[in-house]
Structures are given as C-alpha cells and as structure tokens.
C-alpha cells in the first residue's frame, strides 16, 4: 500500500526518471497516470518493438503499414481493405461475455477510425479443455459475447478458430479480427492535413469509471487467480451505441468534414488526444469540464484514462463543426468539443479552469521506453524435440484412431460456435464459416476478399519459430486453396510474461518465423497487436502468434469449395506426406503425447503449392480443394466428404504405416478433386509448377472407403464430427 505511486501504477524507477527529465520537474499524479497508461506494455509495445522491426512490412499492395489504427491494402478499383486483429484475453478471463463483447467493439472502432466500413469479423479463440466446467463457462460466455456484440452491430462474423489446450485454461486467448473497406483516397490516416485551431470533437457514449487503470493494471500485470481487485474494471458493452457510432463516423468521413478520426481504446482520452496531436506534430488543449460524464464527480485522472467504450474523437475544422454535430445528433449521439489543436508540442489539460497536466504530446505517444529484454531458451527444449512420437508403437485400430481424432474438439466441427454468429448480414458473404477461408464479395465488382485466421498452438509450444512460420503458411494456404492470392497479414501475438527470458525467447523466435514466412510468401505485415502477461502463477499460455490473412480473388464465381460434389471425380493429393507426427493431433489424442518435432516447413515448396492452387482455380481446373493440416490427410478427406455429402474410395500407399499416411501433418499439401476431363490439365500444371502429386482415388457413394483400412458411412461420421462439441458442453 505504501508503494510509491509510480510503482503502483506500473511505472519503473527508470521510467520515472525519464519522465522527470522530459518535464524538467516531478510529474503530478494526473501526469503519472497518463504516462502509466501510455507507457504500459499494452500501449507502448515497449518489450516487443525492437523485435517487431524485423517483420517485413512493405509491398506494392500495402497502402498503410503498421503504426496507424490499422493497416490498409490496395485491392484495385480505387478500393482499400483495412484490417487488424486484437486481443481481449484479460477482460474475457474475468467476465467472458462482456470481455469478448467489448473486444469486438474495440477492434471495430480501430477499423472505423481509418474511415473504413467494417464488413467482416473473425474470432480466433483458445481455451482450456472442455472437460472442465470453468472452461465450458468461459468458452460459451466468450462465444455468446462475440455474437451478442457482432450480431447487434451488423458486421458478419465469417470465420475464426477454436483450440483447446490446458495452458489456455487459466488464461483463455480471445482475439478478434475486423476487416473493413474504404475508398482508398478517403482513408483517414495521419497523412491528412491538420490545421492549428482545429477542434477535438468527442462523440458517442458518456465517460464513466470504466476500466480506470485497466491498461496498466489489467493488461500489464499478471492476473492472479481469483483476483478480486480487477473485477470492478469490467465493462459492459453497448453494441447499439456502437452501431450508431459506426454510422455517424462513416457519414462524417463521407461528407469529408474530418481532418482526423481516433477511436478511444486503451488509455482512453489520453491516448486519443496525445496521438492526434503528435501525429499532427502539434500540441493540444484539453478541457475535461467539457467531457460528458455518466457519473458525477470523476477526477481528472479518471476522465483522462477512462476506457469507457463506444466513444470516438474527431478532428474538425471550426467551420464544419455545426455539420459534424448535426450528423452525430441525427444518429442519436451526443457530441462535445473537448479541446483544440495548437502549435507547439504541448498537451495542456484543464479541469475547473486549472491546469491539471502539461506534457509534451510526443513524449506520451511516441517516446515511450523500449526494452531489449533478456532471452533464453527454456530448459529441456531439445529433449522434448528429440522425443519424437512418429515411430512409436501404435496399438489402436484405424477406426478408433479416426474417431478419436475427429471427435477431438480441436478437429471437430465448430458449428456450435459459428451458428451463434450472424455470418450473412450486409449481403456479401459468398462463403461463410466452415470452409478453409471465408469469402466476402465487394459490391459492384466480381472481386472478393478471402479471409482466414490461424495459429498453431502445439507446434509453437514445441518450436516457436516453426509454430509462427506454419501459422503464416497455413493461413496463406487456406486462402490459396479457394483460389485467392494471399496479399498481406495482420497478427495478434499472445505470450506470457516478457520479463521472463524464456517467454522473450519464444517471442523473438516467433517473430523470426513469421518474418521468414511472410517474406517467402510475399505477404507483408500491415499491423497487429501484442498481448503479453498471459499467465498466472508460473504457467503461461503457449506462445501463440495468430495470423489474420487477407487474400483476393478477382472473380468470385471461380472460387473452389472444399466439398466433394458428384461422383467419379479423381481425387489428388498435391504435395507430399512425410513421417511427421511430432506435435500432431494424432500424437496428442491417440498417443497421449505432446513432444517431438513439428513438421518441417519448406517455404519454397509451400509457395509453389500455393501458386499451383491459385493458377488451377483461375484455369477452372478444380472441382474441390481443401487444405491439409490439423489431423492430416484423413481429416481432410473426411471433411471434404461431409461438406459435399459425397463419399470416396481412396488407396493408401503401402510403404509407410497407415497412421503416418492418415495422420501425419506434413505441410504444403492439399486435397483436390477434378472433373475426369480436367485431370490431365491439372497434372500438367502440377508438373510445370514443380509440385509433386499423387492420385488418391475417386469421389462418390455414401461411404468413405480407405482401401483395406476403413469403410464408414458419411452420415455416421458427420454425426461424430458435428456432435462432439455439443456433447462435451452437455458436461
């Protein structure tokens, strides 16, 4: 309790010294609170920045790279796609429904702040095993919260993923990605000209004591089990207010009355105002008396750092103020001028006529500390990698093994999740959840965006470099499988405590893996989010970089779906299967082991496979295509059969054990089916592209036959696959 204030707020002694140097005096408590919020890990990226610089961020398609509210990519026709992913794991661990709901709200405002209309959401999620009641509570609460918010604001949730693993029990991982679209020349970025004397117009919800200290306390300090203090920081989302906020913001953009637009998220008003001023290379006056409050008598630091949801800050020329406020009023939103920009770099905050804080805006927004934290591989890494399960003795029968893998909640259908999401609103959804990637067409064109999100928990736990590289490769493959060209990624990097050298090592390795894969696949990183401190006691989550991939298909009528359709179509495996069971679903659920080396990833082969998939689709050669990943070839074939309600007969090569063929998770593979008359064309193209392939068999009939091994009715297997998660939830 008698801890010095700066320490209690999460600032270190060194950081306090820097503040003193900048100000030339001791900061007052308001100023400390502002620094604490802005220099928190969450806002300043102080532990991650030095590593993030290694990521490739450039390419002809990139309009806006990292550093803005969200990245933007050129898709032609004068259109820009804006997308970003963010974590709301800490709040969701405390109150799953509201934590997840407000997470959706936050990322949507990031997209809107760029002047883009949000057109899709994806929700990569990770929980502890569903056999535990608390995990079921968190899982169903988070899913309901994402649906509750996303459905109510009219943005379709079209994809995501759900994984279950013990390390994500105490600390579930809740990421949400939002994708928006804008006229490229209307994007609201810091490149806009901003004038001295322009007004800061705060609009949307009133400010309450929400998430006060949320940034520094909730996001930057490790959650202790049963921690009571963080509870009052829970916030209630108001999706109705958000919907109005979206419409009002976009109308302001449309009418071109804005010089700037900022969402209010972490560090609230402090962040929005200091960033607006710093980006404009100006200073600002901020009048806290003008801020509409929800509760009486908030103190200055509370108003400054409140994270009340559903608020935005616009920079408006005085002569357009009237119009801007009318737009807000028409949408039923209150608005208030809370300050203005001025020359010089100072941010002066007043309350009741008194100056309560005076700080150079840039020192808050841009001059936060940067740490190169110590890193060290955890003990025993090599032993775990060497303990490879690939040639373990397997005593399970093929059918039992397939059942175990298919009913593992990591593999089983996530229908229970995505049926709770409106995936159709806005009328652009060509392909919703349940396929390799989601497809959203762009109104007025034949183009469509193809979206996928992927993280590789187990691989990352065994080898963080490979885990990250695989995540990029799989996300890109998911997109290519449908025939779309991967363009760029966003990401959310979920890790434990960066002050622990093992965690920092995992982080650095993951960044390297992501960087290498992004370079090879020509998908630059346009933005993302880092979420540290995902641990309680000494158990951290698995290092979990989650990749959000944006792809583009020029003519959505040519997209290739995963389901087998019709009989007598030759089935091919593109790519090669190697004996690689390390870190596989099979190893975990059948052999009960998490060890070994994750599958190798040859990025050149991966790029070749993906090019083949895209070119084959463009040439209209493929009848179906499905990416081969978690659960291996067996799961891929079964999913294609279920999706298309069509069985198959497949021959398995005899030179490797059946479980390697069926369940190895070798990278750079896909299963396709083709009309018989197109088979030669596909083979020629594969040869030309340098992709090995093998003919597996043929589609048709109501049964799935793996020659000499398995013979199952599609309908029965569908039941297993669809019911697994509902069954687990029934307890």
């Amino acid at each position, binding site marked *: 309790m008698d801890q010095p204030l700066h320490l209690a707020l999460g600032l270190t002694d060194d950081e306090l010294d820097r503040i003193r140097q900048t100000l030339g005096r001791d900061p007052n408590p308001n100023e400390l609170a502002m620094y604490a919020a802005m220099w928190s890990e969450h806002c300043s990226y102080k532990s991650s920045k030095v590593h993030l610089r290694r990521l490739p961020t450039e390419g002809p398609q990139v309009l806006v790279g990292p550093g803005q509210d969200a990245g933007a990519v050129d898709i032609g026709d004068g259109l820009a796609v804006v997308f970003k992913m963010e974590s709301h794991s800490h709040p969701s661990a405390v109150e799953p429904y509201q934590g997840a709901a407000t997470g959706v709200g936050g990322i949507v405002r990031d997209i809107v702040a760029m002047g883009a209309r949000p057109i899709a959401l994806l929700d990569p999620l990770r929980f502890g095993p569903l056999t535990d009641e608390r995990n079921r509570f968190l899982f169903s609460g988070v899913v*309901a919260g994402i*649906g*509750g918010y996303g*459905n*109510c*604001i*009219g943005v379709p949730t079209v994809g995501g993923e759900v994984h279950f693993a013990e390390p994500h029990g105490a600390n579930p991982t809740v990421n949400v990605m939002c994708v928006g679209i804008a006229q490229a020349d209307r994007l609201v970025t810091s490149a806009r000209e901003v004038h001295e004397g322009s007004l800061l117009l705060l609009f949307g919800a009133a400010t309450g004591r929400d998430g006060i200290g949320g940034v520094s306390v909730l996001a930057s300090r490790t959650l202790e089990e049963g921690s009571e203090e963080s509870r009052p920081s829970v916030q209630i989302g*108001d*999706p*109705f*207010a958000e*919907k*109005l906020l979206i419409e009002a913001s976009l109308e302001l953009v449309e009418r071109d009355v804005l010089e700037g637009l900022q969402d209010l998220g972490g560090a609230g008003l402090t962040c929005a105002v200091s960033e607006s001023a710093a980006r404009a290379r100006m200073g600002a006056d901020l009048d806290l008396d003008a801020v509409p409050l929800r509760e009486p008598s908030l103190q200055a630091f509370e108003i400054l750092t409140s994270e009340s949801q559903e608020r935005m800050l616009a920079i408006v020329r005085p002569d357009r103020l009237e119009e801007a406020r009318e737009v807000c009023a028409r*949408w*039923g939103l209150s608005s208030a001028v809370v300050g203005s920009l001025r020359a010089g770099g100072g941010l002066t905050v007043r309350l009741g006529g008194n100056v309560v804080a005076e700080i150079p805006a840039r020192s808050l927004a841009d001059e936060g500390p940067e740490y190169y934290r110590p890193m060290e591989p955890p003990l025993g890494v090599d032993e775990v990698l060497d303990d490879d399960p690939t040639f373990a003795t397997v005593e399970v029968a093929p059918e039992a093994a397939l059942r175990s893998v298919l009913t593992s909640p990591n593999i089983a259908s996530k229908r229970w999740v*995505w*049926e*709770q*999401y*409106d*995936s*159709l*609103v*806005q*009328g652009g*959804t*060509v392909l919703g959840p349940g396929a390799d990637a989601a497809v959203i*067409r762009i109104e007025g064109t034949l183009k469509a965006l193809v979206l996928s999100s992927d993280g590789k928990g187990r691989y990352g736990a065994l080898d963080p470099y490979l885990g990250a590289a695989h995540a990029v490769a799989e996300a890109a493959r998911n997109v290519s499988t449908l025939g779309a060209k991967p363009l760029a990624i966003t990401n959310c990097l979920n890790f434990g405590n960066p002050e622990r050298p093992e965690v920092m090592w995992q982080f650095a390795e993951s960044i390297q893996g992501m960087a290498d894969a992004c370079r090879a696949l020509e998908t630059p990183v346009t933005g993302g989010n880092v979420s540290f401190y995902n641990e309680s006691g000494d158990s951290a989550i698995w290092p979990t970089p989650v990749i959000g991939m944006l792809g583009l298909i020029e003519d*959505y*009528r040519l997209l290739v779906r995963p389901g087998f359709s019709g009989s007598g179509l030759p089935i091919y495996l593109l790519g090669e299967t190697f004996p690689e069971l390390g870190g596989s679903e099979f190893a975990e659920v059948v052999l009960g082991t998490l060890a070994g080396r994750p599958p190798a990833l040859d990025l050149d082969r991966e790029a070749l496979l993906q090019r083949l998939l895209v070119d084959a689709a463009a040439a209209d050669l493929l009848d179906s295509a499905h990416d081969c990943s978690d659960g291996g070839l067996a799961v891929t074939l079964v999913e294609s059969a279920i999706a298309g309600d069509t069985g198959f007969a497949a021959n398995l090569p005899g030179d490797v054990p059946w479980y390697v063929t069926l369940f190895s998770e070798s990278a750079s593979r896909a299963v396709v089916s083709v009309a018989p008359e197109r088979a030669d064309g596909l083979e020629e193209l594969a040869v030309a592209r340098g992709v090995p392939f093998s003919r597996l068999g043929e589609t048709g009939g109501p049964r799935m036959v793996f020659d000499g091994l398995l013979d199952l009715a599609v309908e029965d297997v569908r039941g297993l696959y669809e019911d697994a998660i509902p069954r687990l939830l029934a307890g």
Partner: protein
Amino acid sequence: MTRRPRIGVITFPGSLDDRDALRSVRFMGGEGVPLWHAEHDLREIDAVILPGGFSYGDYLRTGAIARFAAVMDEVRTFAARGGPVLGICNGFQILCEAGLLPGALIRNRQLRFVCRWVDVRVESSRSVLTEGLASGEVLRVPVKHGEGQFVAGAGDLRRIEDEGLVVLRYCGRDGAVDDAHNVNGSLDAIAGVRSEGGNVVGLMPHPEHAVDPDLGPTGGQPMFASLLASALARV
C-alpha cells in the same frame, strides 16, 4: 409495366439488414426507397419493408421502442388502407409490438442466437408475401435471430390457426413439420403470420438474404416476387 413498384425500406436506429433489403428489391426489379424512422413520410411507396436488425439494440424487448417511431404512424395508416407491409425478423417483432400482427417473439428455446439455413412451408397464399405460391411449397431461406420464438396466448393462437393467419412454418426438406426442424421452439412451428387482410406479413427468416444465386439458395425470390406483384397491383 409502366413503372417499377416503389418499395420503401425503413431504417430505424439499429436496423442492420436495411441495405440488404433495398439491394434485394432492386435485384428483383423493384425500386428501393430508403425511409427514415423519424420522418412522417412514406414517399409515395407501393409497399413498405421493416427490415431486420436490432432496433434500439433490442434492449427491453425486441421492437418495443421502435414501434413508437414517427414513421410508424404512417405505416399504420398505410396498412389500414390495405398497403403491403412486410416485417422481416426485427421488422416482424416491431409489427407485433405495434399490434399490427398477432402474437409476440421471445428468446429462442435454446437461449442462443441461431444463424442457419432452414426450410419453411407455405401455409397460406392469402398474403402479400405468398400470393402465387401454393400451400405446401417448401422454400429455403436463412434465419438469424436470438429472439424468434413465436408465442401467443392460447386464445390468440387458436384464432391465428382457425383464421389461417399462419403464412409459413419451419419444416424439413420434404415439408414435414416436426420438433427437430423447429429452429427456435415457436408455437406450432410458426415462422410467419399475416393480418386478417393479408396485407401485413411478418416472418423471422430473411428472404432478402436468399435472392442472389451467387450467395446461396434462392427461396426468397418467390416471396419478393409476390411482394412486388402485390405492390404493383396498387399502382
């Protein structure tokens, strides 16, 4: 045809499928006319759609606040003169709250939002939504709602059934009505009802998301065709 029917679509605060309804009206050959909740003006439309969404967040009760909107006075007058009025999802809920349709919609039996393609069976062709459709015809359309369970008091329900006010029921592909296909637990698997005059219709499924073949099944096409024809008949 001298002119295309003008179909108004009202935007309430929190309406979500308003643009989608307008797009589908145009797709089906009508003229889409955006209407604003706060205006006492229906802009000489020939039919009006109350679209899906979460008006006023669906807080308190679905449709409870929207039914007080200024434009609802005009909708009432328009309906009383026999004008075609279609409420989709949230629009259906608003029409029930406004007393223009019988019954009410409460939380789904499973207490979860559900977004799913379903089959519905036409029960009555005496409505602006189903004119020209045969009873028993099965159409594939999506539902997406958290509060779509149709309920009514015992007396009201009897009247609804006796007077043939049920327009659509949830069913299987073959048209069979059973509990397994009752997606939200509605009484008598009711998916849509009409007014006595047949000019006011409400349904929970979203026909506007089932007209463009590039996006999926097209069970919404005949419904929109019927609405447009009814609207045209008034021109």
